[in-house]
């Protein structure tokens, strides 16, 4: 078996365990499903209001950011802090699984689940638009809109996941990891929003002059670079000898 195939198999093994744990953990289903009710509500209410623009414009970006942020934000703190809290980490690390397979398996499980939850949201949105603004034939998202939506969801999920793993690696408890992650993802946008409010006279005309496509391209670029940096950092920080030495 080639080394790559072996690694892929290891990643899939970790994902198998994560999936089992997530689906069958007592109480975890409701803990995850309840916060997702609001994005699901959004995927009904906003398409209702937006009509065809939901499928042809970009309002659907809203749920493509909200669902990965919420789902990954809720599930990723469990990744290592949960293993540590439940005393399963040392046994997992004493196995033959390579470091990168453990890390990738956990990250991809969370992001993969987020994308799987997003798809029904997008389908519900499309169904609502067709219901309220029937045009004689079934309408669906423009390919470019769908591509932007899914690409953005993937990048946002990976970003949240990478930050979450970095925090979870160092946290003793899931609660501690969750609080730290919420801090990281709530405080910077709040500060950014306040700065934007203070300098709105200068910033808003600048952004308007920049154009939607260029803004979107910049956002994608920043997310890609951010993801690469954070993933490299997470791989670098994942050291068996350090995880158990604390």
């Amino acid at each position, binding site marked *: 078996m080639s080394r790559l195939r072996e690694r892929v198999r*290891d990643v899939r093994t970790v994902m198998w*365990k994560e999936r*089992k744990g997530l689906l069958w953990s007592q109480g975890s289903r409701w803990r995850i499903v309840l916060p997702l009710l609001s994005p699901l509500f959004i995927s009904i209410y906003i398409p209702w209001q937006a009509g065809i623009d939901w499928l042809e414009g970009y309002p659907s970006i809203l749920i493509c950011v909200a669902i990965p942020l919420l789902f990954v934000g809720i599930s990723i703190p469990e990744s290592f802090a949960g293993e540590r809290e439940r*005393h*399963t980490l040392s*046994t997992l690390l*004493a196995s*033959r699984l390579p470091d990168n397979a453990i890390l990738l398996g956990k990250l991809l499980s969370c992001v993969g689940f987020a994308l799987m939850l997003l798809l029904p949201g997008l389908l519900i949105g499309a169904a609502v638009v067709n219901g309220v603004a029937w045009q004689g034939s079934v309408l669906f998202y423009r390919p470019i809109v769908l591509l932007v939506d899914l690409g953005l969801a993937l990048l946002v999920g990976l970003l949240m996941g990478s930050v979450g793993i970095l925090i979870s690696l160092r946290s003793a408890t899931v609660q501690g990891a969750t609080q730290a992650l919420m801090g990281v993802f709530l405080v910077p946008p709040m500060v950014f929003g306040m700065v934007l409010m203070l300098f709105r006279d200068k910033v808003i005309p600048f952004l308007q002059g920049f154009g939607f496509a260029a803004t979107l391209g910049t956002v994608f670029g920043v997310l890609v670079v951010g993801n690469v940096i954070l993933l490299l950092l997470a791989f670098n920080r994942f050291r068996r000898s350090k995880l*158990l030495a604390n």
Partner: protein
Amino acid sequence: MTASEFAIVTQQLTRDFASVRALDRLSIEVPVGSIYGFLGPNGAGKTTTLLLLLGLLRRSGGEARVLGFDPETEGTDIRTRSGALLDDTGLYDQLSAEDNLEFYARVWHLPLDHRRQRIHELLDQMGLWSRRRERIVKWSRGMRQKLAVARAMLHRPSLLFLDEPTAGLDVVASNTLRGHLAALVDAERITVFLTTHNMAEAEQLCHRVAVIRDGELLAVGSPVELREVSSHTVIRGHEWSTEAVQDVANLSGVLAASLDQSTDRLILELDPSADVSAVVRHLVLAGVAVEEVTRKTESLEEVFLNLVGEES
């Protein structure tokens, strides 16, 4: 260091945590195919040693070879060939017993047919087959320990690390688990490195034991050898004289002789080759009225307490 006859060899292995020395120049050799007991009180450095040997901690000094590999640079090779039951069972509560084993069978790339067969075989041997589909969250500690032992042996490792496998179990559960463990080790012919502070367990299972305290190695040998070293001969009599005791102390094979005048007993530490009858004859000729000669062999627990007590 040779790896062929020893599964584990350490030389001057040391580990410091900040200013605390958890392991102090440990040198041991664990023969292939043996059950090696690593005994010590809580905080002696047993778990640290185990984590160092598995390549899960970095050493501060010394050398180690496990199955011929260096834990520091070839930890993956060691972990691929070994199984471990660490300080906790490491089982996933939300999964069933079968899924817990299924996960680790996948981790070790067991082929599907073999995986099913092996899980069945181990659960059957541990008496857990009928409860395989239950989530283990409500299982007793004894059942979980048995499942964890099964998990550690799933991929037929050549080396098994067990960190206090019967800790927290009642007498019956401990004995049952020891029985299962001994049977499995015997059937699969593997090397076991077992940490424990349960002397009965060490005496029942281990071919060799090492006693450690505060990171320092105090004694190594088979349980019989350790008990033999600590055994002594007691001679009860009267009409003792200082000269007679002094003469006996100088006899060949007598390592130490001390007279307890309050009980009229002479306590002798003898070399295994020493001739007790010659000692008695010598005492009789020196005018001592010898009434009784007994050989007292201490249990491993007494040996352990003496060793640990002396050091503390």
